[in-house]
C-alpha cells in the first residue's frame, strides 16, 4: 500500500505542491488567505475521499474543497455577505 499506487493522502500532497506554483503569483494577502482555505479544505476530507477510492483524483479534491466552502454558507442557502 502506498508503493505501487500512491495513497490518496500522498497523491493529494503531490497535487497541492503543484498548486503552490499557482499561489506564487497571487498578489494580495486576501487572495493568499483564500487560497490557504482551499488547501485546508482539500486536506480536511481525506478519510472520506479515501473511502470513495475514485480513480479521479481531482474529483475527490474538488468535492472536498466545495464541501468545505459549502459548510461555511448560511444554513438557509442565502449567499454569504461579501467580506469587508
Amino acid at each position, binding site marked *: *500500500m502506498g508503493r*505501487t*499506487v500512491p*495513497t*490518496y493522502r500522498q497523491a493529494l500532497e503531490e497535487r497541492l505542491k503543484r498548486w503552490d506554483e499557482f499561489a506564487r503569483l497571487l498578489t494580495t494577502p486576501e487572495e493568499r488567505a483564500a487560497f490557504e482555505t482551499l*488547501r*485546508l479544505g482539500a*486536506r*480536511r*476530507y*481525506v*478519510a472520506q475521499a*479515501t*473511502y470513495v*477510492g*475514485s*480513480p479521479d483524483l481531482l474529483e475527490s479534491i474538488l468535492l472536498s474543497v466545495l464541501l468545505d466552502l459549502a459548510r461555511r454558507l448560511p444554513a438557509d442557502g442565502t449567499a454569504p455577505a461579501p467580506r469587508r
Partner: protein
Amino acid sequence: MTGAAGPLPDAWLLDITESSDGRSVVLWTKERTTGRVRRTAVEYRPPFYVAGSRRDLTDLLPRLAGRPTVERVRPVVLRPSVFDHRPRTVLEVVPVRNAQRRALARTVDTLGGFVRFTLFDVDLGPPQLYYLAHGLYPFAPVVGRGARLTATEPAETVDYTFPPLVTARLEVTLTGPHHGRLPPNEGTVAAVRLGDVTLEGPEEDLLRALVGELARADPDVLLTRGGDARDVPWLYRRAAALGLGPDAFALGREPVGFRPARAARSFATYGRILYRAATYPVPGRFHLDRENSFLFDDADLAGLVDAARLSRLSLSTVARQSPGTCFTAMEMAEALRRGFHVPWKKNRPESFRRADRLVAADRGGVIFVPPVGVFGPVDEFDFASLFPHIMVRKNLSAETLECRCCPTSPIRAPGLGYRSCTRTVGLIPRTLEPLLARRLAYKAAVKDPHLPAEERARLVGRVKMLKWILVTAFGYQGYRNARFGRIECHEAINAYARELLADLVPAAERAGYRVVHGIVDSLWLAPTDPTHPPDPEGFARSVSARTGLPLGYEGRYRWIVFLPAVTHGLGVPNRYYGVYESGEFKLRGIGGRRHDTTGLVRRFEGEMLNLFGPAGGPDAFRALLPVALRRADDFAAQVRAGTWPVDELVITHRLGQASDAFVTFTDSVAALRQLEREGVRREAGQTVRYVILDRTSRSYRDRVRPEELLDGHEGYDPDAYLELLARDAETLLGPFGIVRDDLLARWGYGGPVARGPYRSPEQVVQSALDGAAASGGTF
C-alpha cells in the same frame, strides 16, 4: 488456571537442537522428579520436496541420485501446496547432512532454471520438523524416553502447567583502563555473577569456577542485559585468550565452538533502522538477552514460552525474532499438521489488474482528520483484534479467496467483490482462531481477583505476546515474501474494515453520539447531549451483536486534546492526550511517548499532566492555561540558569546509518567521534546518547559529551534545551495559541545556531603546533 489434567509427565521437553554430526537432532528433557536435564541424540534427517512437471522430475531424479550430498531421492505422491486440489507426484530428497539442505535446494532450483521446480519444506529447521513430525513442541510435558517421547497434552492447551525452569542472572564485570562508564576494551574478567553467587579471583580460576557453578546451579535460562553484545562474547574471548577450549569452557550443556550462530546485523523495519547483536549458541540452555529481544521486554518469559509452544520454535529463537516470524512458524505448523507442505519461495506473483481496479483495491482503513482542540466528555471504543477477527469471520486466506469451488459465494469483500470460500476453512483462519480464543481466555482469567500474583504476571505476558502475533498476522498478508500471504487478502481485510467503520457513523448517531474521531478500529464519540450521555456499554454490546465483531468500551474521557500538524494546522490522527474518568492518562505521539525524549521534557510533560489531570472538562482545562504558562516559565528559568541536572538532559539518537557514512557534522557525529576515540563503534540501528555542551562549537569535543563519558559537572548549552522545552510546550498547548517563538522570546533565548567557520582537525592541530591559542576548540 493452574494444573493440567491427564497423566503426570515423566519430563518436560525443553528444546531440540541440531547435532554437530549433521545427521541427528538432540532432545533436551528435564526430568520431573529429579530436575535433571538429559541429552538424547536421535538420528533424524528430514526430506524436502520438489514439485514440477512429470517430465522435469523424471529428468531431475537421476541427476540428483548420483550426487555425493544426496542420501536418498524418490518419487512420492502427496498434496504439497494448499492450492493443490489433488495429490500429485513429487520428489522426496534427503541430504546426507542436515546442514546441506539449503545448498542442495539451491542446486535443484538452479537446475530448474529457477522456474521449473517449486520446493517445499526447505527452510524449516530439523528441530522444527522433528517437533511437527512427532506431535511434540517446546516445553511439552512428555512420557517415554529418547526417540519415543509422547506429549501428554496438545500444544494448544490453554490451561497448562508452566514448565519448572531454573533461571539465573548472568553478569560479567571487566577490569582494565576505564574511560567514564565505558567498559574497558582490552579488559580482563574481574568478576562474574551467576544467580546469587558472585565469583572473583585470578581470571583462569574464575572462568573454571564459573563452569563449576554452572554445573552446580544448572540453570535452564541465563538472563542478561546486553549478553549477546557483551557478557557472552567477553567470556568466550577471554577463555580463548587463556587457551581454554570449548571442552574446558562451555556455557551450555554441551561443548560448542566460540563462534556466533548468527552474525550481528542492521536492518530496516517499519521505517526504522534496528540493530541486532550477534548471538552465540548455548546448547541445552537458553540465553535470553533483554536488550536484544523485542518480545522479552514486553511479553516476559511466560509469553515467550507460550509462543515457543505454538510456533515450534526454540525459546532462544522466539526471544530474538519478531512476532511475524512466530506467526509464520505457526502457519507452517498448521499447514504441516493438515498434510500440506511449506513452499520455500513464494511463487505466486500478483495477478495483473486494470489501474482503476488497483486504485480501488489498494487502500487502507478509515482514518479521520480529528478536530483540533480540547473536547469532553468523549467515549472511546475499540474493536479488539479487529483484523484477525475479520480474517476468521470472512474466511480470508490465500487459498480461500476467489476459490474455484464457490463461484456464487455470498461472502464478498465490499466494493471489491473478492469471494471467500464457503466449503473449506482457510489456513490463516485456522491458525488465527485458536489464538483469538486463547487471548480471550487469558484476558478473562486475568480478571479473577483471587489469582496469585505470579500466575497473573504469566497471563499478562501471554496476552501481550498474543497481541503482537495477532497484529503482525495482518501485516504479513501484504508483505511480498510472506509465505502464505496474498495481497488480495490484505485488500479484502481493509475493505471489510472500512465498511464496518462507515456503518458505525449512523449507528453512533442513532445511539445519541456524534463522531469526533476514528482510526481504522477505534472510535471517539461525544454524547450529543452531555447531560444525558448514552449507555456506552449498551452501545458496544449492540454493535458487537450486530456485526459479530467484538467492540469494546475503553472508557470516558473527562477531556481529550487532539493536536495539530505543524505544517498545515489540521488535526493529526494519532497525536492526542487525554484523561479518563478513572484518572488514567492516554498519550499518543507526544514527547513522553517517544524513546528519544530527554528527562527534562518528560518531567515538563509530567508537570503539565499533573496540572491538567484533575480538570473535570474542557472549560476547567482552559482555565488552567495561565498556570501552565507560569510553570513553563519556571522550567525555562532554571534551564537558563544552567542548574538543571545534566543526566536529565541526555538526548538519545538512533543511528540511521553507520557512523562513517555521515557527511554532515551533527551532534551525533560529534558524540560518535568521541566514542570512537575510546574504541567504541556504533552501528546503524544502535543509539548514541549525549548532552549538548555548546551547539555553536565546531569542535567535536566541545559540542557534546556522550553519556558514557559524563562526569556530572559539565556545563550544558541552555539555548539548546530552551528550544526543546519550547517545542514541547507548543506541542502540548499549541491548540490554545501557545507558540514556540513567543515562548523563546519571553525566556530570553539567544537565537538560532551561529557557528564559527569550520576548521578541520588538521587545521586545529596545526594551529596548536604553531603555538597559537585555538579559539574554536582544543584537542
